[in-house]
């Protein structure tokens, strides 16, 4: 039985003994101890030249740290609110592409070579990385890159485009 299940069960038993006490509940709903995904920055501001020629590409746009705690098998999912496009209003879209590049060396338990590691992918659907080894306490790190291609010979409608990129830790 996993450690966090034991902890939850123990807390459940405590609460059961004193059903009027609710003080322990917030502790119970906490995620498994230590499992997390953190970024060095949660806001990415990008200036796109919009000259019909220049690609925006930053392979190190952000640094992601994954801590699995005692989870051996887990998955990291990448999803986009606008299915891989930055959006301005209701009519204008700029497709973008994401890539994960491992920083941490050695055997990190990454299963195979997911598409998002092999190259830049548009998040028209969820892209995943699966792991079969728990991370060290300090976690493992990946660069997250972003790329926006020009449309040859055309301008994008100028203005501010936004999207929300969600990276999710899923215990297996």
């Amino acid at each position: 039985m996993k450690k966090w299940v034991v902890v939850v069960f123990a807390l459940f038993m405590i609460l059961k003994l004193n059903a009027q006490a609710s003080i322990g509940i917030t502790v119970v709903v906490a995620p498994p101890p230590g499992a997390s995904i953190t970024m060095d920055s949660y806001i990415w501001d990008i200036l796109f030249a919009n000259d019909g020629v220049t690609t925006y590409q930053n392979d190190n746009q952000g640094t992601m740290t994954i801590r699995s705690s005692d989870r051996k098998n887990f998955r990291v999912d990448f999803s986009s609110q606008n299915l891989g496009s930055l959006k301005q209003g209701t009519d204008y879209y700029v497709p973008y592409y994401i890539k994960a590049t491992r920083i941490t060396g050695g055997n990190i338990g990454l299963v195979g070579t997911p598409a998002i590691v092999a190259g830049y992918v548009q998040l028209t659907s969820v892209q995943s990385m699966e792991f079969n080894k728990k991370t060290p306490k300090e976690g493992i790190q990946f660069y997250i890159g972003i790329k926006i291609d020009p449309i040859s010979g055309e301008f994008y409608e100028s203005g501010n485009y936004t999207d929300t990129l969600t990276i999710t830790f899923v215990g297996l």
Partner: protein
Amino acid sequence: MKKPFLLVLIGILAASMAWGATINITANVSQILDVSVDASTWTIPLDNSGTAITNASQGILTVKASKSNYTVTFSSTNSGALKNGTEAIPYKIQVNTSAWTEGVQTNNLSSYTQLTTPQTIVFKKKTPTAGKTFGIDFNIEAYTEYYVDGLYTDTLGITVSAP
């Protein structure tokens, strides 16, 4: 079911689900608004014969825009006249946008017009990155009296703006 038990159950379910990070991405796509002409000086001989001068494509205007709505404005320093001191020769221009009707909302210079006041062409489509080109036609109407000989000048201003 007792409330604490229910909350613990919710906690167990939450604990078996997912956690992660959310990143807000904002891309500022640069605005391109530019007008240029093939020649910044037009030298037009007037032989004082009374015959009208009509020069199709006296100049070529190139417009580049990354916006769907923008306006190109034409104005004249001397309100549509070439001047030599107090002497004046009225002239007219027109801009031929017939090759890009789908991109033009309103062309107030579709026929020969004297720029006594600024005139506009309102566009409704962004251009390719190479821009769109339009001929600027020039006209001095036929006349029955001689103009005083000499050099007559004016400055034609062309600007582009977007809301």
